[in-house]
């Protein structure tokens, strides 16, 4: 193995952080038993035995967590990042440096109390959290890993970091209140929960309020602290979002991993021309990129991620013809647009308009579907499936047009697949690189 660039353990407070709930529960239970013990000289042997037992048990708990902490370590070498953990079932996960796509530092509320941070290492298909690192260690590890993954010498300064968009609290609160779809659900939920009580006068019927409160909190109140202070910065090969009021999190998206970008616009946001932006990222599901932003900010982000052509494709809008009104009442909003490298599709009219722009070179499948109603009116929908869990769908197109579009997309996907970097070659290159780093190989 190559020499370690950075190695270390988690923050010394880790055993306390991990055991405090169990210790508190134990202390509470012990305190509850205080009346059962007779603290008099007559029963000295008895209470010394009980006190000794308690201390022994506490020692075992603390020793267990300390041993677990001692067995947890990370090592960064010139070729790999490895993370070992577990007391009984010891595991060591190793990530080749060139497979690491992003590294993010988060600070959940509990971590801020203990002045530690959580590091998330993302590869193409999975991620690994390394909790309880000291803030300095986490930042140092993140910077070094990112520099090494890019092939830079550790210690060089990271460029970029310009702020692209920042969501202030007022805008965020207003955007949640103006989301008619969410507020409609809350109001209907409230009516559904309270009306039975008004009719029956039974307190039991108020039980419906509990699930309503839960769903209302999740769709409105919880969004505010979760998305609070959302800031998007430009980093060298993509963007980084930092967000959260209590749990401070960050997430980095690299340009070449973003396969699609979707703008959502609820009806009451239209007068302000606000949109929310989400994106499909290879190996992961759809991610929120911006909870609310002006269209200009969103378009700037789109251009930064996918280039100017992605914006241009949105200028041309092939709407469906009037015959589609038999398939959907919102036919005026449906449409698609395509260019050399992009496919955009519009859907939704009343509550939420949605436009998705996808890279055709990231297309994995092409699907044509036709429902009974569409068949009666000579319509069909074409979907291009993208990695990252997002699809771009041109809905209710005339059958001939749908077939031609599907055929065109199919050929594009096929050509791009043939032109892609073969995995066999990548494997071979990785193996060669590993061998050249082996000691005694002359490197």
């Amino acid at each position, binding site marked *: 193995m190559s020499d370690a660039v950075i190695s270390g353990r988690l923050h010394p407070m880790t055993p306390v952080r991990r055991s405090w709930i169990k210790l508190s529960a134990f202390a509470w239970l012990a305190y509850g038993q205080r009346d059962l013990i007779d603290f008099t000289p007559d029963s000295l042997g008895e209470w010394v035995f009980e006190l000794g037992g308690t201390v022994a048990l506490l020692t075992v708990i603390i020793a267990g967590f300390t041993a677990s902490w001692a067995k947890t370590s990370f090592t960064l070498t010139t070729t790999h990042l490895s993370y070992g953990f577990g007391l009984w079932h010891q595991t060591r996960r190793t990530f080749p440096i060139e497979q690491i796509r992003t590294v993010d530092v988060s600070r959940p509320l509990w971590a801020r109390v203990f002045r530690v941070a959580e590091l998330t290492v993302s590869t*193409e298909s999975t991620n690994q959290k390394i909790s309880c690192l000291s803030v300095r260690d986490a930042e140092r590890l993140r910077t070094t890993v990112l520099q090494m993954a890019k092939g830079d010498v550790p210690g060089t300064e990271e460029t970029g970091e310009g702020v692209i968009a920042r969501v202030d609290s007022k805008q965020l609160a207003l955007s949640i209140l103006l989301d008619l779809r969410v507020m409609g659900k809350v109001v209907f939920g409230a009516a559904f929960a309270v009306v039975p009580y008004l009719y029956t006068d039974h307190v039991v019927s108020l039980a419906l309020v509990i699930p309503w409160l839960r769903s209302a909190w999740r769709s409105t109140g919880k969004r505010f602290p979760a998305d609070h202070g959302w800031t998007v910065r430009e980093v060298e090969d993509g963007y980084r979002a930092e967000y959260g009021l209590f749990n401070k999190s960050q997430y980095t998206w690299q340009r070449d991993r973003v396969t699609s970008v979707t703008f959502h616009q609820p009806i009451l946001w239209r007068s302000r021309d606000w949109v929310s932006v989400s994106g499909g990222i*290879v*190996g992961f599901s759809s991610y929120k990129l911006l909870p609310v932003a002006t269209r200009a900010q969103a378009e700037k982000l789109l251009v930064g991620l996918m280039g100017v052509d992605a914006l241009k494709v949105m200028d041309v809008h092939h709407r469906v013809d009037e015959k589609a009104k038999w398939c959907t009442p919102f036919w005026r909003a449906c449409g698609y647009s395509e260019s050399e490298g992009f496919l955009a599709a519009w859907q939704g009219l009343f509550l939420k308009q949605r436009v998705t722009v996808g890279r055709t070179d*990231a297309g*994995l*499948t*092409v*699907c*044509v*579907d*036709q*429902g*009974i109603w569409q*068949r009666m009116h000579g319509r*069909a929908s074409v979907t291009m*499936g*993208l*990695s990252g*869990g*997002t*699809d771009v769908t041109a809905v209710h197109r005339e*059958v001939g047009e749908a*077939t031609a579009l*599907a*055929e065109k997309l*199919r*050929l594009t*996907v*096929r050509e791009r*697949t*043939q032109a*892609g*970097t*073969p*995995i*066999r070659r*990548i494997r071979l290159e990785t193996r060669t690189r590993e061998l050249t780093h082996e000691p005694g190989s002359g490197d």
Partner: protein
Amino acid sequence: METTTGDEVHEADLKLFQGTLFNPPETAFRRCPERAIIAWRIQDAVTNLQITAALTFAVWLIAVLWQKQPLWWLATPLALTFPVGVWNFIRARLRWRMRGYYLGPQELWVRSGIGTRFIETSPYGRIQECTVATSFWGRRFDLATVSVSIGAQGSLVMLHIEPEEAEKVAKLLRDLALKRGVQL
């Protein structure tokens, strides 16, 4: 299993897109064996019977025991489940007729759906994983299912085909993915 190459294939594939979804029966798509129809019918009938039994028990408990209704009330769940049973019987053949797969020279094609019909295609180079599975009823009728994961939402499924054929198809797809697989 590869058939032809070059422009000829392009034309053939184009015909698939134009011909199969909208005029289903005459295509190059490979269907599952006809005994799959019986498997689906039995599977659906057993499910339907379970629902009928549960509903009948509920009617017996509520209507007959509690509300003191006559015994003929026990037949009422049949009004709901009998039409469903008839539809399931017809649906099994329609399902067999509409389902199919085609291994083209460059891509895998899968067709499915009765009311809403789907035809989906993906190049072999995009295949991530290939799984062969057999369900309880599949084992009774010696049928297997091949699922192909491609990294997008859902997967391409070749339902209820011959087990030997399933193994052969899965091996071929794995080999093709290994040979032509590209980075996502």
